[in-house]
C-alpha cells in the first residue's frame, strides 16, 4: 500500500499557539485540519512537510454562530457535514448547505472542514498522481519539476481550483478572517485567491483561516450546481454559484461565480451586471448564460473533456438562474410545466 512519509504532528489548543508553531517551523510545516486531502497528497509526495500543525484540537474554530439577519459566522474548523446540516445555513443560505453537502463522501465530510475546502489545493490530473507516476511522465512545476504539462509553453501552473464552497461564499459576498503572528485581518473571500495553480491563496504561510463571515441575509436567493461524473466522491469539474436579491420582481444585486474552470473561482462579472435592474425572463437568462460562460476557460486536466465543461458552463448558469426564477430546468420542458 502507499505509506505516509514520516512527520511530526503538533497539536496546539489555540489559534495563537498554532500560528506561533507555524512561524517557528517555517516552510517545513503545514497546517492540517480534517486531513482528507492533505494526507493522501502526502502519500503521493505532493506535500512533504516535516511538521504538521493540527487544527483539530482548537475549539474556537468550530461552530456556526450568530443570526442570519445580522450575518452568520462559521468557524473554519466546522465540518462540512455540520455546515450542510445546520438549520440556519439550510434556511438562509441553501447554496452553501448544498455545496458543503456535495463535497466528496459522507465519511470525508465528517472529517473535512469548510476552511479546508476553501483552501483546498488546486488539482490537475498530471499532478494528483503518485511520485512514481509523476516521475514516469516527467515532473511538473507544481511539484519537483519546472514545466506545466497541461500547457507546456506556459510559465505558470494551471491546476484547477476544486473547492465547492468558495464559489458560493464569493457569490454571497462573504469575508474571511485570517489570523497570523502579526495580527489578524478580515478580507473578502473574493480576494483570498490568486489565479495561479501553485500560489493560489492570498494568505501568508503562518496565517490561519479562522472564520467565514456571511453578510446579513436580505431577500437573498442563491443556488449552487456542480458538474461531476458521479453523485459522490468527485471533485467539481465545473461549479456554478449564483446569488441574487430581488426588489419588486427586478434583480437588485447579482453575482455569478464559476468554480473549477480556472486556478481560482472566477466571477462572471459582465453576466452578473446584465441581470441588475432586470426581470428574470427566460430570454434574459439565456443571454446572461452565454455571457457568463465566456470567462470559463477549462483545460484538459480534469475528468470529462474541457470543451464539454465549457459548453456546460452555459447550461449550468442558465439552469441555476432558471431555478432561482422558478422556471423548469430545461427550456424544452417550459410549456409542459407552465
Amino acid at each position, binding site marked *: 500500500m502507499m505509506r505516509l512519509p514520516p512527520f511530526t504532528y503538533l497539536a496546539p489548543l489555540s489559534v495563537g499557539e498554532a500560528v506561533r508553531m507555524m512561524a517557528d517551523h517555517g516552510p517545513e510545516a503545514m497546517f492540517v485540519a480534517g486531513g482528507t486531502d492533505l494526507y493522501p497528497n502526502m502519500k503521493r509526495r505532493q506535500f512533504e512537510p516535516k511538521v504538521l500543525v493540527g487544527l483539530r484540537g482548537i475549539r474556537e474554530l468550530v461552530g456556526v454562530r450568530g443570526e442570519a439577519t445580522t450575518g452568520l459566522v462559521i468557524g473554519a474548523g466546522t465540518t462540512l457535514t455540520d455546515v450542510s446540516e445546520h438549520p440556519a445555513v439550510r434556511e438562509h443560505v441553501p447554496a452553501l448547505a448544498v455545496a458543503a453537502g456535495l463535497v466528496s463522501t459522507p465519511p470525508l465530510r465528517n472529517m473535512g472542514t469548510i476552511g479546508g475546502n476553501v483552501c483546498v489545493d488546486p488539482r490537475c490530473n498530471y499532478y494528483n498522481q503518485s511520485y512514481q507516476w509523476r516521475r514516469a511522465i516527467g515532473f511538473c512545476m507544481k511539484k519537483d519539476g519546472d514545466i506545466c504539462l497541461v500547457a507546456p509553453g506556459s510559465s505558470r501552473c494551471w491546476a484547477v481550483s476544486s473547492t465547492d464552497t468558495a464559489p458560493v461564499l464569493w457569490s454571497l459576498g462573504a469575508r474571511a478572517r485570517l489570523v497570523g503572528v502579526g495580527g489578524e485581518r478580515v478580507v473578502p473571500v473574493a480576494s483570498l485567491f490568486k489565479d495561479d495553480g501553485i500560489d493560489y491563496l492570498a494568505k501568508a504561510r503562518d496565517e490561519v483561516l479562522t472564520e467565514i463571515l456571511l453578510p446579513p441575509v436580505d431577500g437573498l436567493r442563491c443556488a449552487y450546481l456542480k458538474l461531476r461524473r*458521479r453523485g459522490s466522491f468527485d471533485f467539481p469539474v465545473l461549479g456554478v454559484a449564483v446569488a441574487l436579491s430581488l426588489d419588486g420582481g427586478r434583480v437588485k444585486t447579482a453575482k455569478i461565480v464559476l468554480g473549477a474552470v480556472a486556478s481560482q473561482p472566477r466571477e462572471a462579472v459582465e453576466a452578473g451586471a446584465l441581470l441588475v435592474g432586470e426581470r428574470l425572463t427566460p430570454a434574459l437568462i439565456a443571454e446572461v448564460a452565454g455571457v457568463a460562460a465566456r470567462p470559463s476557460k477549462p483545460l484538459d486536466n480534469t475528468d470529462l473533456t474541457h470543451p*464539454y465543461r465549457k459548453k456546460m458552463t452555459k447550461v449550468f448558469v442558465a439552469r441555476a438562474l432558471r431555478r432561482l426564477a422558478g422556471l423548469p430546468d*430545461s427550456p424544452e420542458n417550459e410549456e409542459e410545466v407552465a
Partner: protein
Amino acid sequence: MSTEEFSVIGKPLAKVDAWEKVVGAARYADDFFLPRMAYAKIRRSDHPHALIKRVDTTRAQALPGVYAVVTGRDFPAVKFGILPVSQDEEALCTDKVRMVGDPIAAVAAVDEETAEKAADLIDVEYEVLPPIMSVEEALAQDKVRIHEYGDGPNIHKAVAFEFGDVEEGFRQADLVREDVFFYQGNTHLPMEQHAAVAQWSPDGKLTLWSSTQTPHYVHRALAKTLQMPPAWIRVIAAPVGGGFGGKTDPFSHEIVVARLAQLTGRPVKIGLTREEVFYCHRGRHPVLMWIKTGVTKNGEILAMHCRSYVDGGAYGSYGVASLLYTGALQTVTYKVPRYKFEGVRAFTNKPPCGPKRGHGTPQPRYALECHLDKVAEQLRLDPAEMRRRIAVDEYTKTANHLTITTCGLRECIDRVVEASGWREKHRKLPYGKGVGFACSSYLTGAGLPIYWNDMPHSGAIVKVDRGGGVAILCGATEIGQGSDSVLTYVVAEQLGIDPKDIRVATADSDLTPVDLGSYSSRVTLMAGHAAAQAAERIRTLLHEAVAKKLEVAPAELVSRGGRVFVKDDPERGVSFAEAAVLGETMHGTLACTGSYTPPKRAGKFKGSGVGPSPCYSYTACVAEVSVDPDTGEVKVDRVWIAHDVGRALNPLLVEGQVEGSVYMGLGEALMEEQVFREGLHKIPSMLEYKSPTTLETPEIYTILVETVDPEGPFGAKEAGQGPLLPVPPAVANAVHDAVGARIDEVPISPEKVARALELKKQGKPARVGPERLPVFKFPEPVKVASAFGEAADPSVKRKTQG
C-alpha cells in the same frame, strides 16, 4: 424435482463465511504477519516501450534496512504466461519493458517505507523505443515490434472461421445491415489489492499465500520460473477480496516474493498499491467491431459476419482465448444458420488485457444487441418480440458446433417484458425517457482446460469424523462469489446434514485436490459435481453400514435432517454421528474422492476449443433510463433482468451475483474506461477511474428462471458472469428510445450523448461511434460445415420429462 424435496438446495441461506467477512475476521493475504517478515516493493518501468540498458542497484543495496535487491538476472531465464501458447512474461524484465509499470527490479526490506525508498534508489538506464498505443497503430506499421512472436508484426493472433456460406445467406436476405462499434477497455477494480506472502521452510520448500483466483496455475508458474519441483511448492489462495478475472493470471509479484524469501531467509510480503493493480490489469480488451447481418423481414437471421480488432496490451495473458470469445457465443443466443468470424489481437504498450467478467463476450454482445435494435427499428418490429422469435431452441447445435442443452431464453424474455411493462413503454415514453432491450448467453465453465490434459477439471475429498463432522477438501477458490458455500450446500444435501456441521478447506495445493480455479463460471458446476460425487460415495458407505445394523437393504435408507433412516419407516434410523461410527467400523477411515471432467463436445476444427461448455445460461434485460437533453447525462432508473440459472442452489447468492453483474455492467456502459496519455495510464486511482457508486445504482428487479439442466449439479447453471452481458446494450438501446441518439461505443458518456444530440440538431445522423476500420487482411477462413439446427448428440444428457 421440486425444491420442496430438498433440505438445503434452493434455500436462501447465509454464506458459510458470512460472519468472518462481516466482522472483519477473514484473513486476506495482506493480513498475514509472520515473525521476521520482510516487505517487498517492485521498481517498475517509467516508459511504455524501451530497452533496458543498465540496472544499477548499488544505492538501494546500501540503504540501511534493505535485505535484498533482485533484478531479472537473479531468476532462471524462463518466461511464463497463463496460456502455453503465450509464454511471454518475465518475473522481472531483463532486456525490455513493454509498458509503464512493467517490473524491473525488486527490494526486500525491514518495512514497507524502506522498501519503497530503496526501490526509488534503483537506477535504470533505458533506450526509449516508440510506443504503440492503439490497435490501429499496431496494425499500421511493422518497423517497431513489441514482441518477436505471433502471427505477424505486433499481431499476437489472427483467426478466421466460416461455418456455412454466409454470402449465400446475405443474398437470400430481405435486409442486410452493417454496423461498426467500439467497446472501450475497462478494469476489474476489486476492493482488495493483490497481495502475496512467501515463506521458505528450512528444508527448502516454498509456501505462497496469495490473493489469486487460480492457485493451481500459480503453482505451475512458480515451479517453472523458479525451476523447482512442484512437489516442494505449496500455494494457498487466501480469501480473495474480489477478483472478477483480475487475479486469474500468475503475476510477477508472486514469483518475486518467492525468490526474495529464498534469498533473505525471511518470509516476504508484498501488497500492491492501487496504481500497481491498474498495471496488473488483465481487464476488458478494447475491441473495435464490425457486424453484418442478413435477415428476413421478420428479423430471422440468415447469415452473420463479425470482425473483431482486439487491443491486447503488452502481453499475451489469456488473449488468444479472449480473441476467440469475441466470436464464439453470438450463435448461442439466436438462431444463426451461417456464421463467419474474423478476429485479430494486436500487442500495444499498455497493461495487458485478459479476462474480465464475461471474458471477451460483453464487447460483441454490445455490438450484436445494438445492431439487432437497429435491425428491429428498420423492420418496424418490436425488438423484444423479434428476439423471442429468433431465440435458439434447446438441445440443438449452433453453426459453430456448440451444443445447447436447456434454454430458458424465451421465458426470460417473457418475464422481463411483463415485469417492466415493456409494451406500454417502448417508443411510448415522453422525450428524455426510454427503455431498451437486450439478451445474452454465457458458458457454465470452459469445456477445455488451459493446458492440454485429460485429467479432471475439479476434484474434492469428503471426510467424515467420528463425531459426525464433515470436512470438504477442494481446490476451488472462494473469491466472494460463494464457492465455499456452494460446496457446503451440495454436500449437506447429499448427506442430509446441517451445513453448519461442515467445514470447508479450499485452494491449498498441499491439502486439496486440484480445481482449475475461479474463472469461466465453472466452480458451481464442476467443483459442485466433484463434491456431490464424493459425498454420494460417502453416503453409500454409510448406508451400507447402517443397513447392516438395521437389517434392511441399503436402498431403503435415506439421509435427511441429520439422520439416516428407513424411508418408509422414519422412526427406524440412527443419527448421522452414529452412522459415521458404524461406517468407520465397517469400512475404516471415511474419506471419499469425487471429480469432474466436462463432456468432450468441441467441434473437429482448429480453434474449436473456445466456446464449448457443459451448458449455457441465458439472460434477458430491460433498462429504463432518463436522459438529460441539455447535458447528455444518462440516469438509469430501473433494470429488470431475468436469468436462466438452471437451478438456484441458493437464490440469495444468485440474486447477489445478478445484481453485482448489473452494477458492473452499468459501470462499463456509462463511465468506466482505461485511457492513456503520453504512454501512461491517465487515471490509475479509485478517485479518477470512474466507477459507479450506490447513488448511480438503480432499482434492480431480478427474476430467476429455472430450467434444471441435466448437466449441472442439481440442475444448476452459471450466474456470476452472464447477467452482466445484456446490461450495456440495454442501456444504449434505452438511450436511443429516450432521445433518438445512437451511441455505438461505450462508455456512453454525457459528452457523447450531447454530441449526438447536437448532430441531430444540425440535421445529421444522431450517432457517435467509430467511423472506420483499420486496414487488415485476415487469414483465409477455416471453412467448416455449419452444424446449425442439428439435434444435440444422442450422448447429451436430457431432462427427464414430467
